[in-house]
């Protein structure tokens, strides 16, 4: 049963299983474990970006297709939803129309890109996707009467997915892990008080409902991709990654397989864009189409471990946590060092990107196969010894 759910591709490393379980529990019980809007939005973004990065891994890690157009498909989903609700109002018909329209456009564009890969290979293909993505970005900024230009668009979500909606009456309680842990740290003697302080009221609204929609979709997409990469189709993709020439000699029309991978990946990125729009309720070129976002997607994929899928989960969680909380961590450090010195300059909260860069270089240097790849190597080494 479990084997069928994971398509026979289990984490294959105890520490990795533990990490994944922690992430799963945190996401599943998120609104009940973390207090505050910032934590809530981080959780939502993790769900959305697991879909984005896992679908990117299908191309990059499993098929060795380097594409810079992934944010374009993400943006198509996000803008599709924003434009549809803008034009048709905040109802579920608008959501369906936006979703269908965005997916249709993505399928057409990704089909063209996939067929293009027949003629244009490797780095040249990557450059073409880059050009297409930039063209799309400038279109989105310039067609301001449709897209809102640089200002972007507010997404009008249905009442059922908004903060005013209460799916059920009655109070719900959550248990704040952060309060509990910091309480345990500062006043370990006073356990009863710490426990009491950790309990907080959860106001379960349409936003939480939307979060759980995103969580379930993200989980299903992940399991779907896991099945796909472990199917005969997925094996052909890996064969193309390893040796496309030989895959052809075995009778596989590799263009068909590559195009299929690009289309599946694009459709899933579009779906993620739709969820992003519904959670974030604001779409602009910077948060959906920007090239920096593309680089971040690439980083999350590489840090986690290309061609493992689990890597996308770990990479996304780690990256978004660092992006959101590294500044806080640095603020803590900065409070400990005297002002004005070199040290203070280095640990100033604004330097978070510098430290992030250092972390990235270290992780690529020490874990060339990504975190997941490295954890699996360690587990495998320990096995024969035991």
């Amino acid at each position, binding site marked *: 049963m479990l084997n*069928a759910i994971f*398509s*026979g591709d289990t984490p294959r490393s105890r520490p990795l299983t533990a990490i994944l379980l922690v992430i799963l529990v945190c996401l599943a019980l998120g609104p009940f474990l973390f207090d505050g809007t910032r934590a809530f939005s981080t959780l939502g973004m993790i769900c959305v970006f697991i879909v984005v990065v896992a679908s990117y891994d299908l191309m990059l890690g499993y098929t060795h297709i380097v594409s810079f157009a992934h944010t374009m498909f993400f943006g198509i989903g996000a803008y599709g939803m924003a434009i549809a609700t803008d034009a048709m109002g905040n109802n579920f018909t608008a959501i369906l129309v936006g979703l269908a329209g965005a997916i249709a456009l993505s399928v057409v564009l990704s089909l063209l890109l996939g067929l293009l890969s027949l003629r244009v290979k490797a780095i040249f293909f990557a450059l073409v996707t880059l050009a297409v993505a930039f063209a799309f970005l400038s279109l989105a900024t310039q067609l301001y009467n449709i897209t809102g230009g640089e200002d972007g668009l507010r997404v009008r979500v249905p009442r059922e997915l908004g903060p005013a909606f209460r799916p059920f009456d009655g109070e719900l309680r959550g248990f704040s892990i952060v309060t509990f842990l910091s309480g345990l740290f500062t006043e370990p003697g006073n356990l009863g008080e710490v426990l009491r302080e950790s309990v907080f009221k959860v106001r379960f609204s349409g936003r939480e409902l939307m979060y759980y929609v995103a969580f379930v979709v993200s989980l299903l997409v992940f399991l779907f991709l896991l*099945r*796909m990469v*472990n*199917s*005969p*189709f*997925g*094996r*052909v993709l*890996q*064969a193309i990654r*390893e*040796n496309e*020439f*030989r*895959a*052809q*000699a*075995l*009778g*596989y*029309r*590799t263009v068909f*397989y590559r195009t*299929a991978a690009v289309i599946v990946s694009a459709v899933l990125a579009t779906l993620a864009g739709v969820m992003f729009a519904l959670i974030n309720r604001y779409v602009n070129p910077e948060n959906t189409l920007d090239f920096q976002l593309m680089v971040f997607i690439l980083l999350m994929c590489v840090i986690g471990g290309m061609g493992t899928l689990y890597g996308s989960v770990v990479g996304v969680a780690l990256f978004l946590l660092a992006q959101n909380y590294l500044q806080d961590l640095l603020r803590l450090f900065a409070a400990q060092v005297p002002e004005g010195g070199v040290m203070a300059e280095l640990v100033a909260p604004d330097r978070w990107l510098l430290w992030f860069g250092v972390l990235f270089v270290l992780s690529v240097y020490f874990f060339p196969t990504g975190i997941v790849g490295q954890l699996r190597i360690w587990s495998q080494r320990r096995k024969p010894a035991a």
Partner: protein
Amino acid sequence: MASLQPETVSRPVLETRDLTINFGGHVAVNRVSCAFHAGTLTSIVGPNGAGKTTWFNLISGQLAASAGSVRLFDEDITSLGAPARADKGLGRAFQLTNLFPNLSALENVRLAVASRHRIGHVFWQMASKRRDISDRAAAYLEQVNLGKRADTPVANLPHGDQRKLEVALMLALEPEVFMFDEPTAGMSVDEVPVILELIANIKHQQNKVILLVEHKMDVVRSLSDRIVVLHNGELVADGEPAEVIASPIVQEAYLGVSPDQEPRDSQGAAV
């Protein structure tokens, strides 16, 4: 057309007609016409750079011909790509080992079996659940004595094992035409008989076409029904093994030009 098999009344399985390719000004294969009938093993010999592998690439579709045609079962397949030709029954093993290095030996063969059974598009089913495919793949691995190496990533296999796997992949495609490009090159002496026996077995099936590029003259002599000699991209001799080896053009073009052949060959040259 220089068919030297008057006793065969059946139509050829595979045929090249005036097959030509030029790279810039260099004509690597020059108007080569040759027909191959079911149940025969033809060795292709010639010095390095004679165009043997290029000719193979033209037949199996890795290269597109500049002129001339390739026909399989009387159908012109010149315009088809490599995947379509493999689909139609052209099996190819490569001279330079050409596998999927990070996949296991079994997975490599399984890819060939899956292609033969046309299940590459199946994305909803776990590959490991297709016992039929896995069992067949395992059987082919066993045939080349690699059963114990099934789970080893190909990159970690010794060269000789990779050569054997190369052959297993072609067997798994169950083709009508087997194209071996120096299948025993770089193999240790005790591994060679395994491959030769496999080739002999295919030959005994009587209904397949086997093409063999091989430098070892004893192998060529013992297995071949016919020898074709290429030199500078042209077909210079074609006929019974003894006859071809003795012909002056081969003595000069092939055996004479390569004095560093095995001793047996230089003795042959002295006749």
